[in-house]
């Protein structure tokens, strides 16, 4: 099966500073993978390249076998790749409803095939259903994270790029989010999960990429990672 999205030997820079060095990652349709590694290893940058928000300095971003390296982010999004940032970036002036609706504007066509309706998204996150008229900046951290994922789903994506979806949240909220993400995965949506801690990746992803210093330091299946934990803990800093 062709890859839904892949990075091919990508270098990436912020100004003159090189952040990614020859990173190759691939995601098949419906597959969940995880990018793990310490803070500053380049995980978020890799996600930003995948989302089209940062153009690779060398190497290529491929979507459906086509070169998308120079494609503006909004076009990458229209190909069904959606980015859910770690800081959630909920629009503060907009209500929960408006935050969800704004995501549908550019995706009317894709949404016609009907994957995630507003009702289904609100079913998935009942907390949001109770707060539809609340402005984004009045939500709790957990609610903002739910809204960020829900907003991503409203773009009718084939691939969600989740940047640290559980960071800084209470354990009970993390459990809620994990079951929501499992439900999303069960729908056949591909996921790229970036986390520093291994709990979510081990539970949801089938393959793992371990990053260090802008490179892929190790890659393998989740089972292989579980078998190699002792060796990898050093890399992961756990």
């Amino acid at each position, binding site marked *: 099966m062709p890859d839904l999205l892949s990075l091919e030997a990508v270098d990436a820079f912020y100004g003159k500073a090189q952040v990614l060095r020859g990173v190759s990652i691939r995601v098949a349709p419906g597959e969940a993978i995880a990018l793990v590694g310490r803070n500053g290893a380049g995980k978020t940058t890799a996600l930003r390249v995948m989302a089209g928000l940062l153009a690779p300095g060398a190497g290529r971003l491929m979507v459906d076998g086509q070169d998308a390296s120079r494609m503006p982010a909004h076009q990458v*999004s229209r190909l069904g790749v959606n980015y859910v940032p770690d800081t959630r970036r909920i629009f503060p002036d*907009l209500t929960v409803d408006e935050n969800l609706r704004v995501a549908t504007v550019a995706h009317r066509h894709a949404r016609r095939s009907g994957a995630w309706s507003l009702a289904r998204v609100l079913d998935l996150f009942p907390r949001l259903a109770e707060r539809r008229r609340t402005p984004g900046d009045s939500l709790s951290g957990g609610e903002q994270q739910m809204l960020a994922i829900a907003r991503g789903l409203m773009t009718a994506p084939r691939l969600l790029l989740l940047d640290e979806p559980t960071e800084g949240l209470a354990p009970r909220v993390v459990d809620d989010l994990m079951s929501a993400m499992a439900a999303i995965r069960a729908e056949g949506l591909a996921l790229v999960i970036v986390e520093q801690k291994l709990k979510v990746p081990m539970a949801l992803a089938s393959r793992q990429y371990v990053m260090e210093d802008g490179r892929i330091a190790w890659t393998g299946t989740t089972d292989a990672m579980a078998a190699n934990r002792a060796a990898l803990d050093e890399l992961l800093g756990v």
Partner: protein
Amino acid sequence: MNILIIGLSLAAMLFLLSAGLTLIFGMGGIINFAHGSFYMLGAYGGFQVIDSTGSFWLALVLAPLGGAAVGVLVERLALRPVYNREPFVQMLLTFGVILILEEGVRAVWGLDYKDVSAPAVLAAPVHVLGATVSAFRLFLIAFGAAMAALLFLVLEKTPVGTVVRAASADPEMVRALGIDVGLVRTGVFAFGTGLAALAGAVTAPLFPVELGMGFGVIIDCFVVVVIGGLGSIKGAVAASLLLGLVRAGGYGFAPEWVDLLSYCLLIAVLLLRPHGLFGRQRRLA
């Protein structure tokens, strides 16, 4: 009573003038010094339409469209390449736009003043609650209020408005949701300049139509926008009302101190609320 009605008419004009400026600022953080030039362009455009067709009402339709079209050009050719540069580069560019527009208007229409009169239907004075005001001013009040309501509805109740508000807060996130932010920016800039041109056309019967007319109003615009809070339409409405009524009161009791009064109001608001009546700290960060 008279002071109230005239104050409201001043407020309506101030609002029409400053709404576009605050919208544009809210969108890209662009301080468009050329706003006054678009106001001038609208007045000259309005004059041209009236001169050619005899219809003030047609001028109110065509002048803003012209202003918006020039706005599209300016945004695409001048501002787009510098969105990621330091703010002063954008300011310098909008200064350049002032010179270009002024030279352009001068080349097309010459140095002469142009005469724009109120349409005959609104030319007669009317008596409202013991005050003599012109029908045209009452029309201006209604027109300003209608524009404010329309802007509000569009921004708060339509998908386009939602996108604009979202893009004002976090353009990159909007892009990640599949929306072409460049297009949104062009649209908002053009809408803002179209509003400035509309203000120029609709107030032309009350003021001299000449090349320097943009300079006088740009100060008023900034006073309104700063009092109201940069980027806030609600703030622009409130600040226009406040300033319009203060000015009308000033003309009533101490006309030689009106400007001073306006600036005192500005300072008082900034002392009490440094980000303006409806401003948010975040926007200035």
